[in-house]
């Protein structure tokens, strides 16, 4: 407790709160700003943008939260340039915010505080090397997730984490958020697929974390960096594990007359010791929206559909597929369809992966939630989620990674309705409560960002949070990287404040 109070004592201004407007600040381009001139000298003039349009754009991400306050936006092309940016930011006592494609849903890339320098790595987008003997590829952080998999395909490999946003999100963003996707059920989330990282620390040091060997010397700082949401430094190079493409794939679409039957099928499959590559559930509302949008052949009269996929060798996948079919039928599946060929399989997946695009037809705004519950609690928590929607007079749809208990309730609303944001906010808090009460966790893949900071103390004690904060302090004693994220208010790096002046030797 004592050590926690120490860090609380440094609390500055209020931490960012969801839906609360930040003090408005105009994006006045300051042409004569020495910071900008220094950055432009280190990069090139055209790769340091300080115009109000660019800064306004970079003040937001894909989340529902109000924008922050971006300072100069830098587009480095090399690690050396990232080092230079970091050192210039330090000289000017300015924070930095790493940024990929800006598809984050927890507000992780929203720049907070005193106009931080945005380090957008989108121009660092080369696949540097495919090293089959070491089972990895070295890639730059701005490489788009799907581009990487397409690049690896001719070699017989893919990058296993496949977020629904994979056509746009970056590997650097995947690393920072420890992102998941439908196929992480069998293969694990991003952390299991990163062998090594090159990171530019907040002090401008280049760190090699992890290694191509199985047990690199020292602490697993690579493992700690993955999922740290841009608060420990900027990734400039990533060694991703190559996953072999499987020769046999079976994709099943099971229909149910209740969401509970679908959820029970999912826990039944896991309990039977089958580990499918993916198990995704969509409820009736979203299935209908998707079907109208892509015509994937989903049944529009089912209360829920389960998209299950198994992969492996040709004969083994038939055994697994048969078992899933049997468990589905035992749980009252009204229809079980096996994708006949690659075309049908691709169509079924297209439906699942464009689910969010389909929503744009229905309402102008949506808020995608992300919690995890024990698989056996799926059915009960889902029931509660629908009740929460009713209580708050909102429309909620569910499309989620059922196999690992990862719920994604999608709240549909029209932001122009007076008072609707308060109800959206309230429903979100209730969903979190329901998930935690069922023994779940705050986030399965979107991270904490600014979205869930204030819920952290629902899951962790002061001592737990104090220890998380120590990790942050060890990498970034002055809270230069992405300040105001992850840790709840009261922990040093959560507070938007002037960077603390710290004696040089703190960096060791």
């Amino acid at each position, binding site marked *: *407790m004592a050590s926690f109070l120490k860090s609380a004592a440094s609390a500055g201004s209020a931490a960012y709160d969801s839906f609360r407007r930040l003090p408005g600040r105009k994006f006045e381009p300051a042409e004569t700003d020495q910071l900008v001139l220094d950055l432009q000298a280190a990069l090139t003039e055209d790769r340091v943008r300080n115009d109000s349009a660019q800064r306004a754009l970079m003040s937001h991400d894909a989340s529902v939260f109000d924008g922050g306050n971006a300072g100069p936006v830098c587009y480095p092309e090399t690690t050396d340039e990232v080092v230079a940016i970091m050192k210039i930011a330090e000289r000017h006592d300015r924070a930095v915010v790493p940024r990929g494609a800006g598809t984050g849903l927890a507000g992780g890339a929203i720049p907070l505080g005193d106009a931080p320098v945005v380090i957008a790595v989108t121009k660092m987008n080369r696949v540097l090397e495919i*090293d089959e*003997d*070491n*089972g990895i590829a070295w890639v730059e952080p701005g490489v788009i997730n799907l581009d990487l998999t397409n690049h690896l395909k001719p070699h017989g490999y893919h990058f296993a984490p496949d977020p629904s946003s994979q056509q746009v999100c970056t590997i650097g963003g995947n690393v920072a958020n*420890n992102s998941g996707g439908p196929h992480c059920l069998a293969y694990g*989330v991003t*952390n*299991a697929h990163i062998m090594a990282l090159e990171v530019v620390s907040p002090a401008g040091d280049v*760190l090699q974390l992890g*290694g*191509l*060997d*199985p*047990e*690199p*010397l*020292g*602490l*697993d*700082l690579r*493992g700690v960096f993955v*999922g*740290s949401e841009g608060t420990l430094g900027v990734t400039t190079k990533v060694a991703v594990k190559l996953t*072999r493409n499987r*020769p046999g794939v079976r994709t099943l679409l099971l229909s149910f007359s209740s969401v509970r039957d679908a959820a029970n099928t999912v826990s039944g499959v*896991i309990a039977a010791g089958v*580990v499918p590559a993916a198990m995704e559930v969509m409820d009736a509302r979203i299935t209908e929206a998707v079907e109208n949008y892509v015509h994937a052949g989903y049944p529009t009269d089912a209360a829920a559909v389960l998209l299950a996929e198994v992969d*492996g*060798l040709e*004969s*083994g996948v038939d055994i697994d597929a048969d078992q899933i079919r049997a468990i589905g039928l035992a749980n009252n599946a009204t229809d079980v369809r096996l994708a006949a060929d690659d075309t049908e399989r691709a169509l079924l997946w297209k439906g699942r992966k464009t689910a969010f695009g389909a929503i744009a037809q229905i309402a102008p705004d949506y808020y995608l939630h992300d919690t*995890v519950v*024990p698989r056996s609690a799926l059915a009960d928590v889902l029931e509660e989620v629908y009740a929460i929607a009713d209580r708050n007079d909102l429309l909620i749809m569910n499309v989620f990674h059922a196999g*690992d*208990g990862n719920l994604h309730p999608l709240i549909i609303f029209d932001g122009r309705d007076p008072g609707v944001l308060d109800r959206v906010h309230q429903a979100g808090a209730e969903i979190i*409560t329901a998930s935690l*009460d069922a*023994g*779940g*966790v*705050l*986030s*399965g893949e979107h991270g*904490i960002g600014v979205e869930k900071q*204030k819920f952290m*103390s629902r*899951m*962790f*004690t002061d*001592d*737990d949070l104090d*220890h*998380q904060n*120590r*990790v942050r302090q*060890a*990498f970034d004693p002055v809270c230069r990287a992405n300040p105001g994220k992850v840790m709840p208010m*009261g922990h040093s790096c959560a507070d938007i404040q002037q960077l603390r002046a710290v004696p040089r030797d703190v960096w*060791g």
Partner: protein
Amino acid sequence: MSGDSGSGDSSSATLHSTDPVLREFAELVGETDGVAVAGGRTRWSAGGELDSAARVIQAPSGIVDYVPEEMIVTVRAGTPVAELHAELAAKGQRTGLPERGGTVGGALAVGENDVTVLGRGTVRSALLQVRYVSSEGRIVNGGGPTVKNVTGFDLPRLMVGSLGTLGCLAEVIVRTNPIPTVSQWYLASDADPFASYQAVMAPSAVVYDGTNTLVLLEGHAVDVDQQAGELAATGSFVEVGPPSLPTGHRWSLPPAELKKIATHDTGAFNALVGVGTVWAAKPQPARTLSPEVQAVHDRMKMQFDPTGRLNPGRKPGVNR
């Protein structure tokens, strides 16, 4: 806490561990003197010599909660891995922890994978939640009970392989996975182990000692048969019983280096193809961290154990 605990805090009461067993362990760890946790002492010399003044204690043991349908098990750190695995086997499950006579806490603190890592998964990804006692004698919880979880900084990853120098592991939740229907080892003395590794889709182990190649195939019987056929194209493999597990000094090499294993001064060796772990007669030449990465390590130790009382004298990764 500074009053921003979201709306209500119904569940946070359960977070504060009132478990008397853990509290007792926290008291045992204490707050001031040098202390080291002993497990099965099978890797007692890893990380170097323990400071002779340090008090040696034991972590609590026993399985707390096992939910086969969730594929997770809550277990005290002092539980022997063999005891845990016996319990799980009754439900057709196992974990990624090595079965070498050690404890759950020891296996996690050491963080080394065993021969079948490709089939069982790594030790580092087996750990979902950790409760440890800090250098201040406080019970700290990191991670969560679900297989998927991105909720703040990843303390479980920091603890795996930290050799108890950042905290004393008390209780953990570990991921389990199904025991495959068939597990069969194959041996050939004329195979190119790298070709064998490439030939089969998902071997659970390929071990090479310079002459013999040992391959473990696991899964459905039909899959194992098919892969055994593919294996046959790379050498005259015969079915054998489970071999004794390799021992010796532990090396960690990029897997590509194994093709040049002869250029390394290993003495007699067993190399894990596709992984890069080598058990050898001679120790691996000392490895070093760059000064910048060493500095992060030093600051991490300062943050978690400012007085250096946890496992004094030992350093993760040294003396393998």
